[in-house]
Each structure stands twice: as structure tokens, then as C-alpha cells.
């Protein structure tokens, strides 16, 4: 099985730099600059976003510097992901995306049923005596609950 390996220390460095960049973007680009700020702490809609930007920058910097410490260098742990696992995750995740995209146009019951079936097949279920009842009864049960129980209109 093909495995992707990432060094945790590198991942942490990337994350810490990401937070520093995010802090700069927040402070200089995204925080609403048209809002007047007070001189000291600034009691305005920018107060807490600015505090968050300071905190992101400061904590990100500390985290980045920590990765050069003796203890961090001694940490040789890695993040492992199998390609097959990533594919399975991707298909399951895409089924959620597909549900959100299609549910309004192709309606709730067929969309949910078909995507459930696809997901079950991808995850290794081959028994149609299990797949068929689940793909029919699961969406129907929720439809009945929401339509008659909660008086909601499912798409």
C-alpha cells in the first residue's frame, strides 16, 4: 500500500507560518479599516479582530521558534496517510459535496439514496440485500420524520 509520509515538525512549521501570514492579512487587509479605532485599545468593531490578529501573530511566532528547539528537533514523528485511504475519504467527502449541490435539483430522496449506495460500495459493502433497504429506507425515514413530524419541506 502506497503511503504518504510527512514530518510533523515540518507540518508545524508550515502551520505556524500560515498563522503569521493569516494574522498579517487580517490586520492589514481584512479587518474593517473604515471603522474608526480609538487611540489605545480601540473600542470598535475592530477591537476583537485586531486582538485576534495580534494573538495569531504572537502565538504563530512562538510556535515557529519552538520548532527550532532541542526537543522539537528530537521529535521524529511523522504523519502517515495511505493513498487508498485518501481516495476513500475523497469519495465520501465528495458525496457530501454532491448532496449539497444536487439536492435542490434532483430532489432529496433520489440524491440521498444514490449517494448512500455509492458510498457503501466505495467502502466495501457488496451485499445488495443490505445496500438496497438502506438506500431506500434511510432517506424515506428522514423524509417522513421531517415532513410529517416537523412540518418541513424537504427539497
Amino acid at each position, binding site marked *: 500500500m502506497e503511503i504518504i509520509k510527512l514530518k510533523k515538525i515540518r507540518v508545524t512549521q508550515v502551520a505556524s507560518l500560515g498563522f503569521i501570514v493569516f494574522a498579517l492579512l487580517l490586520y492589514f487587509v481584512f479587518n474593517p479599516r473604515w471603522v474608526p479605532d480609538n487611540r489605545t485599545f480601540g473600542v470598535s468593531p475592530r477591537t476583537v479582530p485586531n486582538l485576534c490578529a495580534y494573538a495569531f501573530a504572537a502565538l504563530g511566532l512562538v510556535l515557529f521558534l519552538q520548532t527550532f528547539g532541542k526537543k522539537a528537533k528530537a521529535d521524529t514523528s511523522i504523519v502517515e496517510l495511505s493513498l487508498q485511504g485518501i481516495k476513500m475519504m475523497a469519495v465520501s467527502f465528495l458525496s457530501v459535496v454532491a448532496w*449539497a449541490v444536487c439536492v435542490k435539483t434532483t430532489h432529496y430522496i433520489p440524491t440521498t439514496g444514490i449517494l448512500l449506495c455509492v458510498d457503501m460500495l466505495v*467502502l*466495501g459493502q457488496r451485499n445488495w440485500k443490505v445496500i438496497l433497504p438502506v438506500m431506500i429506507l434511510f432517506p424515506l425515514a428522514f423524509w417522513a*420524520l421531517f415532513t410529517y413530524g416537523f412540518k418541513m419541506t424537504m427539497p
Partner: protein
Amino acid sequence: MLEGLLSGFGNVFTIDHLLLLFGGVMVGVIVGCIPGLNGLMAITLCIPLTYVMDLNTALIFLLGIYNGGIYGGSISAILLGTPGAACATCTVLDGFPMALKGQSGKALKMALFASVQGCITSCLVLIFFARPVSRLALYFGPDEYTLLVLMALTMVGAVAGESMIKGLLAAVLGIWLSTIGMDPLAAISRYSLGNTYLMNGLQRTAVFFGLLTMPMILNQIEKIAHQKPGEQRTSLLPPPASKADTRVSFKEWLSALPTMIRGSLIGVVFGALPALGATPAAFFSYQVASQHSKHKEQFGKGCLQGVAASESANNGTVGATFVPLLAFGIPGDSDTAMLLTAFMIKGISMGPTLFTQHQDTVYTIYTALISSNLVLLVAMLLMLRFFNKISKAPQSVIFPCVLMACCIGIYAMRQNITDVFVMIIFAVIGYVLKLMDFPSAPAILGMLLGGTFERSIRQSLLISKNSLSIFFSSAIDWIFWAIIVVVIVSVILSRRKKNVKPVVNTEGE
């Protein structure tokens, strides 16, 4: 008081009312355990049914739903790793890993015992200390609220995950996420990019599902790839190795008792203070329990005390949220706000006059809350085995169903498909954060408390004319500062000493 309580119990303990209480509890539990739905929806759904009931009957029915709804969230949190209600989010951290070890029965029972214990403690506080506790809440000004939130976030951020800095970064991320949308004090929109959806802020439950539940499910799916062909068709949760895995022994209950009592009291404090609620109480109690435990390393990997801490605290808020409601007419959370609406429909106005004008109603509320716990305990002990059957479903069936249930539940909350897209976006962010070892619990707590934090800090600075001295102006402030410093120093020292072992593993493994 004793006379009033006896009269209240007399009201509740009739065949009609007990059956109605049972029905209410079961409606609450079933709705509560469906991801995305919660007790609030069940109460809303059932309010029209109370039009034909008299006041006491309606109170008993609605309080049964309220209580059942809070407990119901823990069932799916333990069995599926997906909290039925937001307040059970913390229960996932240890409940689901326990279920993955074949101890779902034990986890469900501990959740039940802790819930009942938490709620009864909270009700007793309500009965005996409603007035003093409501007076305590009056001492909390904006500066105290700011520091309370800061303390809760520091505690959770500092001890969650492998690194304190990562935990604190996650907490700040949560606070920042809460700032998206319309400013709470000035009508200015932030980070909304002109989008009307973002102007209303992110839907919290969608974000929680994205940050915590989806990465957990995706992670389990990734593990399927490592299994031998055919294993995917085996059940998600392994069967219990022995009978001991299906029950909570007296010894285990006794060892979890201090955690439950502490959790209940944390729940009482968080419940009595408006706008905090059950979810932050559960996370806070969980972190306090992990700090006090002799087996810190077991937290997050399927620790019975973790389940007890979370459940006792979130149910501990139940009685306490009635303190501001009964004393001042201020609902502590959205559920009690809906109950307030139902009471008003019945012609009851909450507030100081309630204790003098409708004393019998007050005692019916007290006794209905306690009785609903007893009914919950008996009903769930008999029926847990049916809920437990979910654990026997194959993982190749259960994961697709859970993913779809998340989508349907999130959509159903506001019938807004954008909420599902928000969940999807945060699922990606959550998964990346998980890969980088950032704990999600502080981010969730940060988002929950961010609004309170922002309102309080700005009110404080406005009152003090931008002087930071307001945050050192009362004894309560100093107590909070002391706790913050002690927590940070103790975490740094203990990690140096023990060569850094995670206190909490939020990956659910």
C-alpha cells in the same frame, strides 16, 4: 418549602402526568439523538400540543422534553461519534473512543448516570439556593464576564492537545470565527464580503460538525483502507470483550463520583450565568477533570471519567438555567427562552413576582425536573439496549448513513443549503487542523464564547474609558487572573517534567 415540594410531587405523581412525562422524555431523547436536531426543536414542535393541556400538565410535558433532549445528544455522540445536540460535543471526545473499544454500553450508562446526577444536583441547587445564586449572578459585570471567558479558553486551550500554543491558537481561531458577521454593538458587517449569509454569522452547529464530527468520520474511513478485504463489512463498533464492558460497576461509579460532583457544580455556575450554557460547561468540566485525574493520558482515548465530566456538567446546567429565568425572567439559553414562551402562553410571567403569586407553579417546575430525571433513568436503563443495536451495523453502512444524516440534520435546522456548504468548508479546515495536531475543542469553545467575550470586553472598555484597570477592579477579577496564571504555569511545569504527553487527545482515538 417541604409542603410545597410535597404538593409538587403530588401533582407529578399521577398516572396521567407520569405517562406524559415519559412521553416527553422519550420525544426529547429521540429528537435529541438525531444529529442536527435538538431539544429546542422538540419543544417548539410540541408547544402546540400544550394548548389543550392545563398549566401543570403542560409544564411537566415540556420539562420532560427539555431534559430528555439534553441527554439524547449523548447517545449518538457515543455510538456514532456525531453529537445529537451541540451540548454533547464534548462527550464525543471520550464516548466514541470507548465505543470503538467495545465499551459503548458502559459509556452510555455512565453518560446516563452522570446526566441524572448532574441534573438532580442542579435542581437541588435551584430549590435551595435559587435566590443566593441569582444574587451571585448580579455580581458579574462585563469585566468579570470577560475574564471568565478568558479563563475558560485559557484552561481549555492550555491543556488540550500536545502543545499549549496550538491549543491557544485554536481558541483564538474560534473567537475570530465568532466575529464573522454583524458586529454585536454597532451595525457594521465584518468579513461578510457583501454576502447576506455571512452577515448573519456562521451557523455554529454547522461549524462544529465540520470541525469535529466530519474529520473524525473521515479519519475512520481512512482507516478502512488499512483493513483486510471483508473487514469493512464487520460492525463499526466491536462487541464487548466481557460483561464488565457493558455496565458501570459500583467501584467505577464511585471513582467517577468526585468528577461528577465537580462537573455538576461547574454546570450550575455556567447555567446560572446567562449566555454561557451547557456546551462550554461540558468542555470546561472535561478539562478540569483531565487536570485532576491521576490518569491524564487516558483522556481522549476512551476514559470513563471524561464521559462523566462532560455529561454531568452539561446536565448540571439544566436546573441552574432556571435560576435567572425564575428569579429575573431572563432565559439562560435558547431552550429556556422557548420554555419561557410556552409559560407565557399559559399566562405565567416569570420574574420576582412568580415566587409570591404562583408558588405552586414554582414547586411543580422543581418537582417535574427531578421526576423527569427519575423517569429518564428508569426508561433509558430499560431501553439503552435498543439504542445500542446501532453499534452492530457494519462500518461500510454506518459511515455513509452518518455522513448523510449530518447533511440532512444541518440542512433541516434552518432549511438552508448554505449551512451544509459551511459544514463542508469547515470539514476541510478541521481535517487539516487535525493533521497538524491542532485540537478542535478550544476552537469550538472559542466560537461559542466569542460573542460573550466581545460584548463584555467592549462594554468594559467603554465603561472604563479604555482603561485596562477595569480588569483588576474587583475581587472576582483577581481570582480569575490568579487561576489563569496558575493554569499556564502549572501546564508549562508539568509538561517540562513529564516530557510532554498530551492531556487531551481530541482526535477521538
